[in-house]
């Protein structure tokens, strides 16, 4: 494993005095699935913009796969890091799903044959064949988000940053997007997920960074961080309901760091010796 992104003592200010980020140190390894959480205004969006080179550190440096964002062009960094916007409407502008996927590939300077081949493969991987000719804006919100992930993934960046990819989506769509992202991670992509959805953080991210007032307050395995309910609440966050239940039962022998319904069922099986079937959340089709 090697470092994909190194953030070294990064300070950032929009105005020259008030620092939005205050000494961020962060090492992200290849293949990680990392979540960045924190209240509104904690510095998440600024940090994200620094990671894709849109903003340059006021002090310190950001190295993306060996490239210093202060000296590299944004387009160079963009080959390494794909960024998926919160609102797919900010990202989609072509006349068809197919063209949307081909657009970035043309910008990379690929030949027509290669582009056609990648477009086909991506349409297949993301199950978008049926809507290939459709104007993206006519798609449902969930499908639009799927197209924006597909268009970025087609360019094959090593790192994907997703800014609140599931906001305002229903459970089915949210789950579908997260499963796609999980698949990309399993194929070796480094994933950085910025979100307020603590259930998705619990279900998908192995490591979580907690930002508060421009500083990293915690950098830990997600499970360990979520067991600290007080810390999360102090930072404007809250663990999933099932973790709250486990914590409230901790004095009765339940592990306090449970992060999913399935784990809670396993805990009950262990402590009460009752057998509970595999939980049904997984039955909602992806």
């Amino acid at each position: 494993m090697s470092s994909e992104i190194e953030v070294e003592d990064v300070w950032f200010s929009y105005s020259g005095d008030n620092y939005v980020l205050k000494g961020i140190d962060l090492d992200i390894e290849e293949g990680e699935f990392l979540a960045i959480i924190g209240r509104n205004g904690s510095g998440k969006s600024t940090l994200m913009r620094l990671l894709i080179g849109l903003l340059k550190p006021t002090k310190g440096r950001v190295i993306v796969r060996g490239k210093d964002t202060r000296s590299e062009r944004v387009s160079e960094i963009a080959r390494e890091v794909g960024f998926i916007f919160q609102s797919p409407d900010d990202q989609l502008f072509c006349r068809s799903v197919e063209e949307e996927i081909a657009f970035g590939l043309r910008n990379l300077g690929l030949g027509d044959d290669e582009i056609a081949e990648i477009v086909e493969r991506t349409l297949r991987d993301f199950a978008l064949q049926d809507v290939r000719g459709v104007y993206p804006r006519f798609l449902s919100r969930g499908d639009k988000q799927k197209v924006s992930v597909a268009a970025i993934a087609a360019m094959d960046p090593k790192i994907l940053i997703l800014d609140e990819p599931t906001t305002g989506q229903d459970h089915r769509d949210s789950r579908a997007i997260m499963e796609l992202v999980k698949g990309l991670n399993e194929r070796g992509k480094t994933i950085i997920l910025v979100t307020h959805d603590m259930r998705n953080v619990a279900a998908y991210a192995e490591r979580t960074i907690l930002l508060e007032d421009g500083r990293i307050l915690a950098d830990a395995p997600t499970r360990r961080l979520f067991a600290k309910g007080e810390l999360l609440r102090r930072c404007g966050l809250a663990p999933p309901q099932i973790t709250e239940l486990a914590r409230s039962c901790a004095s009765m022998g339940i592990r306090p760091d449970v992060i999913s319904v399935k784990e809670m069922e396993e805990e009950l099986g262990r402590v009460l010796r009752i057998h509970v079937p595999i939980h049904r959340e997984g039955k909602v089709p992806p």
Partner: protein
Amino acid sequence: MGYAIEVSGLWYKYPTAKDFVLRGVDLRVGLGEFLGILGPTGSGKTTLCMCLNGLIPHYAGGEMIGEVKIFGKSTRAKTIAELSKRVGIVFQDPDSQLITSSVEDEIAFGLRNRGLSEEEVGRVVEECLRRIGISHLRGRAPQTCSGGEKQKIAIAATIAGRPDIIVFDEATSDLDPISVRDVFSLASELHESGKTIIFVTHEVELLAERATKIAILADGRILLEGDPRSVFSRLEELEELGLRLPQVVQLALGIGRMGHAIGRLPITVEEARDLLIELGLGADELRNRG
């Protein structure tokens, strides 16, 4: 009890659309009810909200069949201005709602339009800023605020007009978890002070704790309605729609499927904890201590 809202046989089609979005909605909301509306994306939730303050049909045009009554009066017979005094809506996208260049003006806007004295406007603005916890933003331009702050400004501006019915249409989707809880608490406070609340959201855990009634909107119709406990016990129908149940409900239903009696379905953390204790959790600890 009188009805705050009566929706009868409501069909609606947007001007350029081919199909009806609402396809026969029947819904009665009692005075002082806290109604949660759940439904998959595209089921017509926002459209239904727009029917409550007359944006449909007065502003949006299109084809509307059936009737919406607010406090017994048909929305067709009232103007949007008249309706907005009774029904306040906070939408998902605050940018669609914020129009002035300072947070104070934003909250004062509706009040000035009603001819309140500057002194009174000042007093109400002050109270709303404090209540929502955004006094520090008073001089800022709403457009320069973060997504979460904008949501709060839109909520403050809505409650400033003292509407009897307050509709939150996915108004918490840009907020961090504690702010989401704050908005739910605020809605509960408003509810306790006698307001009728309509809350459209995907936050089932928080809704289960607060709502007096839940309606499931699917494909332009009300598919299910009732108190939270009875609605959340309909696992198959909700899963079919791709909707999620509160995590403690998922757990309890799992326990129930194994033949363990769960009695009353738990819908909060405390209730779930009580159920686990009934099932014997903590019994060893009690014995050891006792």
